[in-house]
């Protein structure tokens, strides 16, 4: 498991001159562009927009990169899948773990920047691993069926790309969840990723404790997704070597 994860992590940055730095440059560039758009061009009137945005952006990257990478975890390892037998979900999990490593590093390395942006130092940061762990369950639950389906239908990748683009706007990344009008608020707050992003924002921006619902909804949602996803995966697994 460990070697598979390390392999994934290494491969991700191999043959690129800046390697892991891209993982930092990308959210920073996004933060710069979005801050320019939303606090200079379109005034949304959110105080300290960079600090409002960056943690949410990192949490979203954890999910979007995690799922879109692991989408290829079976197909991309066809040489292994067609030559040796081992539980195939290990490939998905190792891709997810490599992504967890990446995202944890992003948070750690960008922490000084967050502090410089005006984040208050508090013990709340200790909650970050809990939130990331819950998000990890969610990612794993989505990754299993995606990776399995991608073996049979390569256009799953395209469909998921669109879903992720929609997700970027559906989740409260560039705006606050409190903006959603009353009628939709309940439905909106049932989205597990909404709760994850809000939790992260509470920790880093508001300096407040996430509520129990903020953590329970994504946790329960993640566990259900994981069970369903695993069931789909097991159903499709026997023919991987033939269909790949």
């Amino acid at each position, binding site marked *: 498991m*460990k070697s*598979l994860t390390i*392999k994934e992590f290494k491969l991700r940055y191999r043959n690129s001159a800046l390697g892991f730095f891209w993982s930092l440059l990308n959210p920073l560039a996004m933060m710069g562009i979005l801050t320019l758009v939303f606090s200079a061009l379109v005034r949304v009137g959110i105080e300290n927009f960079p600090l409002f945005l960056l943690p949410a952006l990192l949490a979203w990257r954890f999910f979007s990169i995690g799922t879109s990478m692991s989408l290829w975890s079976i197909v991309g390892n066809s040489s*292994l899948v*067609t030559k040796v*037998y*081992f539980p195939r979900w290990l490939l998905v999990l190792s891709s997810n773990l490599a992504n967890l490593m990446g995202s944890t590093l992003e948070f750690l390395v960008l922490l000084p920047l967050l502090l410089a942006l005006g984040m208050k130092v508090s013990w709340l940061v200790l909650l970050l691993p809990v939130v990331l762990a819950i998000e990890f369950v969610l990612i794993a639950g989505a990754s299993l069926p995606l990776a399995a389906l991608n073996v049979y239908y390569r256009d799953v990748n395209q469909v998921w790309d669109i879903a992720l683009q929609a997700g970027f706007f559906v989740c409260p990344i560039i705006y606050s969840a409190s903006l959603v009008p009353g009628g939709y608020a309940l439905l909106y707050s049932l989205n597990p990723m909404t709760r994850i992003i809000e939790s992260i924002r509470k920790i880093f921006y508001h300096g407040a404790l996430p509520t129990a619902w903020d953590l329970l909804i994504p946790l329960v949602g993640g566990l259900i997704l994981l069970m369903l996803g695993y069931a789909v995966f097991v159903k499709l697994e026997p023919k991987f070597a033939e269909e790949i």
Partner: protein
Amino acid sequence: MEVVCVADLWKKFKIPHERRTTILENIAGALQMLAGKTFTYEEFWALKEVSFHITSGESLGVIGENGSGKSTLLKILAKILRPDKGKVETNGRIAPILELGVGFHPELTAKENIFVYGTIMGLKNSELKKRLDPILQFAGLERFRDAKLKNLSSGMQMRLGFSVAIETDPDIFLIDEALAVGDFEFQQKCLSKFKEFKNEGKTIILVSHGLSLIKEFCEKTLLLSRGEMISFGETEKVVNEYLKRVQAT
């Protein structure tokens, strides 16, 4: 004790007339079917009613013309493919070497590949560290430990695959024509390793067109033709039958 037991094994493949890999193509295909057009693939039985068993200490040779189902059988024994019908039981750790190579990643170095493959085969990290040098030495690739796999020649890749597979201490060794790529010296090295293997009472299952190799190592031989089991039994007898069949056509 029975090491491998195969009972009434059937394996089917679909040969598509029109390959459909996107959802849209599948929907289009389904609509065509509704409209009364014929199915777009035919079934092809790669293995039909294959049954045999080998007991511990015995080795098996598998022979037959191209496309007779030899490789499919090996892949099923390695659990990579699932049979459509029948039962396959194996006892012990299996190391498959199929179609050149054991599943290496071209972008990783020789050393990294050894670690990935070794862990998949169930070795501990500490064990692998100890075995790293013997593996590279057996493959004759000490100088290339940090070279990416894609930069090694196909012979070198095969040697590395072979060495790793041997070092994982398998009880059953599945080999699919892999020896052919190695040079003479390496082939000799492998053959003496095989002998060691056999002396330890382990099982080798060998797919080969080299009949002398089969005669040398395998007590039992299985002859396949178009997925059907023509005969199974003492090597001498089965090989002669094969030769007769070849001459008859």
